[in-house]
């Protein structure tokens, strides 16, 4: 099963690093989409069947936590694996993020191996 992936981060550099990691890691990746913030992400999610979403927390317009809350309210989280990729180092905040039902938390700076491992774990759990 190939996963359609959405990468949500206001930094093009980070979006590019995750994209490149996914492409070179030999993972079962289908279509890749990008969004600069939560509002754009909701638009992409409304139009495309996304299986896996990487999202930052700190973004303009709509941050990652608000995005996840909206997805929970709409029931969309049930069919979407969410991986939070953030600089956030507060264990209290990370706990709060995990309690929202996300699949994994990856702290920046991350290695390509970490991203690959997360996708492999998600792939196993969904399919």
């Amino acid at each position, binding site marked *: 099963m190939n996963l359609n992936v959405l990468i949500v981060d206001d930094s093009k550099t980070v979006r590019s690093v995750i994209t490149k990691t996914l492409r070179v890691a030999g993972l079962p990746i289908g279509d890749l989409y990008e969004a600069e913030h939560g509002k754009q992400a909701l638009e992409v999610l409304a139009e495309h069947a996304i299986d896996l979403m990487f999202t930052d927390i700190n973004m303009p317009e709509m941050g990652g936590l608000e995005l996840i809350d909206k997805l929970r309210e709409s029931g969309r989280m049930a069919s979407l694996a969410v991986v939070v990729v953030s600089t956030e180092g*507060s264990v209290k905040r990370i706990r709060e993020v995990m309690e929202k039902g996300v699949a994994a938390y990856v702290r920046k700076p991350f290695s390509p191996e970490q991203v690959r491992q997360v996708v492999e774990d998600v792939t196993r759990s969904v399919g």
Partner: protein
Amino acid sequence: MSYGEAAQGVLTRVFEEMAMLFAEPADPAGATPPVGEVLEAKIRFQGAQRGELTIFVPTETVVEFAANTLGVDAGDIDDQEAVFDAAKELANVAAGQLLPEIAGVEQVFELTPPSARCIDAGEWAAFAARAGVAALLVEDAAVLIGVEVIA
């Protein structure tokens, strides 16, 4: 450990882990100012403490940072938007690493989206002379770091 020293350690790790660029502590007053364009990357934080992290970094170093992070040639980082984006991400990651070190891992901070802009030689000199500002030599290029905590 002062905020400046903590920021020095954090930036050293970030440059090394993200981009394989090696850094060593330097004296801000004695560090040779960069010859080319310099950027200011800044991010503000609010939580148990409120303040901002400011980094003065040569554009050439940001280009190298971006290129190594992305695994491309420096020549491929050819537009200002990409350079500013990389400088902002540098500040973002550094702040995320720094705040748990200075306030503890239980504290929660809200970060503003980072900003980046070009600065001139006068701003570099004034920042280098400011109390508490620390410096690094990143592959021999001077980088200044200031952490201002208001409350």
